[in-house]
């Protein structure tokens, strides 16, 4: 096992106890990246080569010098007896939707390809203050709009470390891939409809979407402002807890970050699940799929392997003392996707109006007739298909004559979705649970190109994750097994506002109980390159 394969917790311990230097950790990660990552995502990348198909392609930009300076500073502090921070020497990657001062911050879009941020996102700054080494910016769906990373303007797009022919999921796909492939121990992602949890599930890592307001959004390029949450991606629950500890808490630069106190997530980890009430909902064991053209829905159960993985987790937790509550009703979960189709598009269209070729980013090279023509040409050339689609959809459903039918109605449906959770988590309610246990996704990672282009089917990959975004509650996806084909299965825990501690504690108990499971001994395909 190489240094880069250690957990963040182990790395910080090694560095603090001088069993390894932060510089050695960095070298190990750079070597791994050199071996498995292949050429970084870039504009106008040409055809995929044979080699490209055998590489992970998590990164867009490597920031080796930034990481090296930080590693040397950490090692200096350790040598000098100073506190090197909670994440001392821990290698991290940053989804390229966050601004990091002095580095390209592209949103995986041509329109921001040349943008070098003059400031740093709060969550990144907090990790660096705690000694993390920022190795670089990782790929995503353009402006986070997708569930596979195929829509990135920076190609080759990431490939799943467990099967290089399958997608990584998205939108935090580069984050998930970089963690799964051992290139970094932690990655900072964002979750708007499942964008942390779904790629975590597809790539066999832990992904935590915090409560809305738990982590500052300052420095995050906005998609759906009422839904976006930065959060940790890690190889185990302890590492995710360490990272959340670092980034959580109010930020004067984000008025929507809440002043709720941050508990000690790490301390709570080993408390076990004795007495916790964990719910299963039939509404999370089936998915509704619309017919491509008629819009009529049919309902399908999730794959048997997924149901079994969740039921096995429930059994394991029950054996450790949790009480399993079956049949928790979540009748409005199925409305999550249609409501999201409306709300997120309205917010996206609004947020994308700022990109116009005037103040920063891409400007058309053609000569425009006037300022409006400059906007049109710049946006036509700078945005890919998915941002264009979201702008058009958002404008349509929020137009004065349709707003009542679509946008206003979707916001009221959101209230219904939230009420499901309020009732489930109400200590005085009919069925009180501390957390819900569900599959994270309705399928394992699909093959590359299998779904891309069908924007409706792509959105349905988020069906089991998006209710938490509407409701604002926290959720975590944990590795829960492998399919017969060897693709990761994710299981999800959902909890009440600001109770990430409960989710992490349950997740940790599950990890401990299953640590000898045969699937936990399997390595991703990228380990065989």
């Amino acid at each position, binding site marked *: 096992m190489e240094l880069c394969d250690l957990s963040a917790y182990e790395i910080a311990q090694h560095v603090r106890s001088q069993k390894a230097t932060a510089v050695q950790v960095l070298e190990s990660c750079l070597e791994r990246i050199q071996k498995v990552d292949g050429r970084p995502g870039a504009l106008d990348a040409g055809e995929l080569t044979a080699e490209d198909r055998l590489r992970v392609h998590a990164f867009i930009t490597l920031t080796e010098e930034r990481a090296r300076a930080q590693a040397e500073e950490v090692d200096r502090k350790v040598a000098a007896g100073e506190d090197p921070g909670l994440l001392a020497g821990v290698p991290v990657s940053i989804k390229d939707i966050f601004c990091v001062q002095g580095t390209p911050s592209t949103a995986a879009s041509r329109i921001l390809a040349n*943008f070098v941020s*003059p400031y740093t996102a709060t969550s990144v700054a907090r990790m660096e203050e705690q000694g993390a080494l920022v190795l670089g910016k990782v790929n995503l769906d353009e402006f986070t709009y997708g569930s596979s990373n195929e829509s990135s303007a920076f190609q080759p797009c990431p490939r799943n470390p467990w099967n290089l022919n399958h997608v990584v999921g998205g939108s935090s796909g580069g984050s998930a891939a970089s963690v799964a492939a051992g290139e970094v121990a932690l990655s900072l992602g964002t979750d708007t409809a499942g964008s942390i949890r779904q790629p975590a599930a597809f790539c066999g890592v832990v992904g935590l979407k915090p*409560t809305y*307001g738990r982590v500052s959004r300052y420095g995050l390029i906005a998609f759906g402002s*009422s*839904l976006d949450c930065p959060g940790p991606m890690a190889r185990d629950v302890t590492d995710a807890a360490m990272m959340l500890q670092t980034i959580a808490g109010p930020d004067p630069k984000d*008025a929507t*970050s*809440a*002043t*709720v106190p941050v508990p000690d997530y790490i301390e709570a980890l080993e408390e076990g699940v004795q007495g916790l009430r964990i719910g299963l909902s039939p509404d999370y064991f089936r998915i509704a799929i*619309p017919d491509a*053209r*008629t*819009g009529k829905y049919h309902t399908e159960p999730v794959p048997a392997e997924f149901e079994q993985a969740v039921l096995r987790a429930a059994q394991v937790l029950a054996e450790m003392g949790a009480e399993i509550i079956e049949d928790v009703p979540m009748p409005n979960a199925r409305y999550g996707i*249609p409501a999201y*189709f409306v709300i997120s598009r309205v917010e996206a*269209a609004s947020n994308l109006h700022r990109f*116009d*070729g*005037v*103040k*920063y*980013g*891409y*400007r058309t090279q053609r000569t425009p*007739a*006037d*300022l*409006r023509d*400059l*906007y*049109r*040409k710049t*946006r*036509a050339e700078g*945005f890919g*298909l998915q941002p*264009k*689609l979201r*702008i*058009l*959809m958002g*404008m*349509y459903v929020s137009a004065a004559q349709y707003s009542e039918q*679509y946008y206003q*109605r979707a*916001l*009221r*449906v*959101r*209230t219904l*979705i939230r009420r499901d959770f309020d009732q489930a988590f109400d200590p005085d309610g009919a069925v009180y649970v501390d957390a819900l246990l569900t599959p994270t996704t309705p399928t394992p990672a699909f093959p590359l190109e299998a779904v891309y282009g069908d*924007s*409706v089917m792509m959105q349905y990959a988020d069906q089991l994750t998006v209710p938490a*975004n*509407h409701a*604002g*509650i926290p959720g975590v996806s944990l590795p829960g097994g492998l399919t017969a084909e060897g693709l990761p299965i994710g299981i999800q825990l959902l909890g009440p*506002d600001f109770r990430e501690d409960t989710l992490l504690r349950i997740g940790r108990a599950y990890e401990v109980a299953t640590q000898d499971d045969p699937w936990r001994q399997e390595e991703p395909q990228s380990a065989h390159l």
Partner: protein
Amino acid sequence: MPEQITQEIFEHLVALAALELNPDEAEYLRGELNHQLAAIQELSAIPLDADIPASLHGVPFPVEVRQGLRQDEWQPYPEPQTILKQAPETSDGYIVVPDIPHTTLE
């Protein structure tokens, strides 16, 4: 399922969105828009009591967890050049754009 977004509505949307589309893009995007609208028809069938309010976000945001707004105070930015140099075209610290469409008042 009839098309809801006709060619005419679509062109209007494209203009409002300040976009230009080539024919392939336009065909794909109009197709996907209609496809998505079909997928969200379900919304209109959801029974909603009249007293169900709209939620602009999911988590309640009571005053005790709000930071309050910052004072509206001017703060100097140490390096305005790092911001200005992101602009595609500048001149003497001003951002340059082409002619702004305008009508001269008589």
